[in-house]
């Protein structure tokens, strides 16, 4: 069964310096029918104006992943981590027992476009941690590149998260197809990040998402004039 969540149906926050689309309830956008999907609690599609950002604020008990599509994202936190993130890099922060951090557009001239993803951890009060790494973008062309999952020290590298969930990224050219077997009893969420993708024949575009349950196979195909980019979440 596939249930689509169209881009235009998402919640929206417009703060002048920030345009954020919320696939699931977040902040002042609250919809009891869209509180998350399995352990995937937040999927925000954020655009931050140059030089602007989220000031210091706190989190706890959440696995927070940032996936940059365009521009630079600067991060600073109470663990002493201070980094700048760009496309083809992964940032994973496990808030655990508590983290205070700020996030800003790392450029004074160019906007930043990124997904912020929250996954509910399987334990509360864990020690906070931070991971960041870069990968070769060729690894997600025509293939599902594991970005984060519950295994440590993977090859190629992925971010460890405290949940039985995996996040992959893929870029598919027009007509290019990959398959993903969904183990029995598991679920998936496919998020359109750019361009156009077919999910088991259903076309999604940038900002659209699809909840997948009771399916054993995902056929993902690049569509439209230039194919597309997607995020796939494999969820218990």
């Amino acid at each position: 069964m596939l249930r689509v969540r169209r881009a235009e149906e998402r919640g929206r926050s417009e703060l002048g310096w920030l345009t954020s689309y919320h696939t699931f309830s977040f902040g002042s956008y609250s919809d009891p029918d869209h509180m998350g999907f399995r352990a995937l609690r937040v999927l925000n599609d954020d655009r931050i104006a140059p030089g602007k950002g989220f000031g210091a604020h706190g989190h706890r008990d959440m696995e927070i992943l940032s996936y940059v599509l365009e521009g630079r994202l600067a991060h600073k936190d109470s663990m002493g981590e201070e980094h700048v993130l760009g496309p083809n890099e992964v940032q994973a922060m496990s808030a655990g027992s508590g983290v205070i951090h700020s996030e800003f557009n790392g450029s004074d001239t160019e906007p930043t476009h990124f997904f912020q993803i929250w996954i509910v951890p399987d334990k509360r009060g864990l020690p906070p941690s931070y991971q960041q790494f870069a990968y070769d973008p060729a690894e997600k062309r025509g293939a599902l590149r594991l970005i984060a999952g519950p295994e440590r020290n993977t090859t190629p590298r992925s971010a460890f998260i405290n949940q039985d969930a995996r996040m992959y990224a893929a870029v598919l050219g027009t007509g290019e197809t990959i398959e993903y077997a969904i183990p029995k009893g598991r679920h998936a969420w496919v998020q359109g990040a750019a361009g156009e993708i077919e999910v088991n024949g259903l076309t999604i575009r940038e900002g659209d998402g699809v909840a997948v349950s009771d399916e054993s196979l995902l056929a993902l195909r690049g569509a439209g004039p230039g194919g597309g980019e997607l995020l796939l979440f494999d969820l218990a």
Partner: protein
Amino acid sequence: MSDSVPVNALVVFYSRYGTTEKLALAAGLGALQAEASIRLRRVADRADAGTIAADAAWKTNLDRMNRDYVAPRPADPLWADVIFLATPAESAAEIESYVASLPSLGSMSGKLAAPLAPGHADAALKPLYAAAALSGLIVAPSSPAPDDPIAAATAFGRRVTEMARALKRAS
């Protein structure tokens, strides 16, 4: 640990060079660890722009902090169950001013004020104790912590948050 009683912790601080900011963040982190929702607010300088511009370190920190924090908002103290008040040791004037601007006595009833200052400076803390009490807040004094003031501020944040939770539970 905590039960289901939610606690809102407002962390209000004034800092020029970052020392008091670190203390405030540590208290905020402690509140988070005790499962409070937190808001972090920096009180504006009373000094004029020329004075600040003449001090390069102050100006650099101010530019950064203006980006990292917003100023206190009128709704903040109404939202909060506990208000951490972090002041520099050398001057409590900015935070005293903030406390004096709080809503009327009745609105603050049952809320906690938790002042803290680098070096546990009496000269900075005592005016805040008095101002907070005059505003109807219940004052939770911090303790001297010569060895590790940051760890002590985090522990203070946790402890006061649990006090606020106990007060809410009892009310």
